[in-house]
């Protein structure tokens, strides 16, 4: 067993997901099977192997720090489920 019920609940909390009891069981079973398959990687010798950071041999591109293509605020907040003319509205954060 790679992963306990408590671990599933812990990572669900980190990921801001709330799982029902049957969902917890199901995820525990599925993640356990997947991690079982992934275990085979532990046997691969990766001493002195650099992790991949980019698949192509190119340098990180840089650009000038210039403002361009700014969207109107009203158009950006239009998609928020709750908004005013110039802000997104969320439940109260402070009492």
């Amino acid at each position, binding site marked *: 067993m790679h992963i306990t019920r408590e*671990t599933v609940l812990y990572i669900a909390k980190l*990921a*801001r*997901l709330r799982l029902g009891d049957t969902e917890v069981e199901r995820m525990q079973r599925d993640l356990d099977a997947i991690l079982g398959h*992934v275990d085979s*990687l532990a046997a*691969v010798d990766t001493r002195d192997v650099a*992790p*991949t950071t980019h698949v192509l041999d190119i340098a990180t591109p840089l650009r000038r720090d210039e403002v361009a293509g700014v969207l109107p605020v009203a158009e950006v907040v239009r998609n928020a489920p709750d908004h005013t003319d110039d802000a997104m509205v969320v439940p109260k954060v402070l009492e």
Partner: protein
Amino acid sequence: MSELWKAGLAQLALHVESGDASCHDVVSETLARIEKYDGRIGAFVRLRGEAALAEARAADEARARKRARSRLHGLPIAVKDIFASREFETTCGSKILAGFRAPYDATVLVRLREAGLIVVGSTNMDEFAMGSSTENSAFQKTRNPWDESRIPGGSSGGSAAAVAARMVPAALGTDTGGSIRQPAALCGVVGIKPTYGRVSRYGLVAFASSLDQIGPLTRSCSDAALLLGVLAGHDPRDATSYPAPAPNFLASLTGDVSGLRIGVPRGFFAGPGLDPEVQRCTAEALTRLQSLGAKTVDVELPNSAHGIATYYLICTAEASSNLSRYDGVKYGFRARDADTLDEMYENTRSQGFGAEVKRRILLGTYVLSAGYYDAYYRKAQQIRTLIRGDFERAFEACDVIATPTTPGPAWKLGQLVDDPLQMYLADVYTVTANLAGLPGLSLPCGFTGAGLPVGLQLLGRPLDEATVLRAGDAFQRHTDFHERVPPGVTR
């Protein structure tokens, strides 16, 4: 005129140029086919019927004034439901993006528009492109036009089914671990995942950013080359976009493969997981390419055995990070039953995401969490380096590498929904191209006894889409697998 629906992009361009059909005729025929068949196939989640017809009339007027934007001006195309658009909703197969209308256009949509292509609708997909059957869509099932009791593949299943059923001549898809090539293979159409960076991802909803690429699904390799030419090229808005102009892919289609060295990783053409009919069709395809003058050479890709495990660690880690943005604040769905901000986040994400997306977010969160990062994520990125090294060595001895695209033909709807690991293993031949950033083409190379299509995959060196397209096009000049029409949609 009555046969317009059988024509691909280049053929339609000739019809329109010669005047024996108008763009309005072509788009009307496309919409009529969708009306007639999509109730059964379920490829589309959204249509732009009237808007598309208006654009077709405008295209006819522009062509009459000799103002065509390109050869493809006025021709129809479908796009996966994953590209930001000011014109229509983008929902990525998910409830959590319900109603989302982007304030800007994805670069690929801008490039389609600049070429004059008309988007007729958005196609169904696995939620956030996570899946191999399109069954993870929050909206509907899509059926394989060759056998409607079977899945079309995924995650670009709607795009592949729409092209296979001749509803559209071409569609855009995205490919993170095989999501263009696998549905192309299972639906009997052509699909190419370009080199990582070849096509701008600006405005693409992100799944796994070091793996995602956009590419075309078409009926022929020559149409794929034509459409890739529209999409490809540097875009300063995508920092991962390759900073050089794309070549003329169409010009590379000489029909000549004499002397072409095809690398054959023998292990990919054997093994207990490989369906014998897929084995037969792909082996026959190699023989055909040899008869056209290509040479086969054995190559070894030993670390590909670790492909699936490596892929699922990297893609879930990246997904867990990318999908943290769906929190009910900025766009899409928000759960209404929360008193605090934390509750609102949790309820929104729990109600808005489907099971597979939650599974991958949890796995990704786990492999990135304290104490596991080195054992899982870093280890996977090291093995990724080994996989890339295998390809570099193999490409010293060959120009393209051939494999089956998938281990088997399309499976039954519902068959694997309760077994995520088995579903993941369906991507065994496709994930390594994403891990190494290589271009990968799938083209139809035969049919099983039950009439299901089989795909041959051709992988190329980084940035060498031209050679895989040349090999695929040469094959199609001597075969007719790509011209066959599913029996249920022949009128």
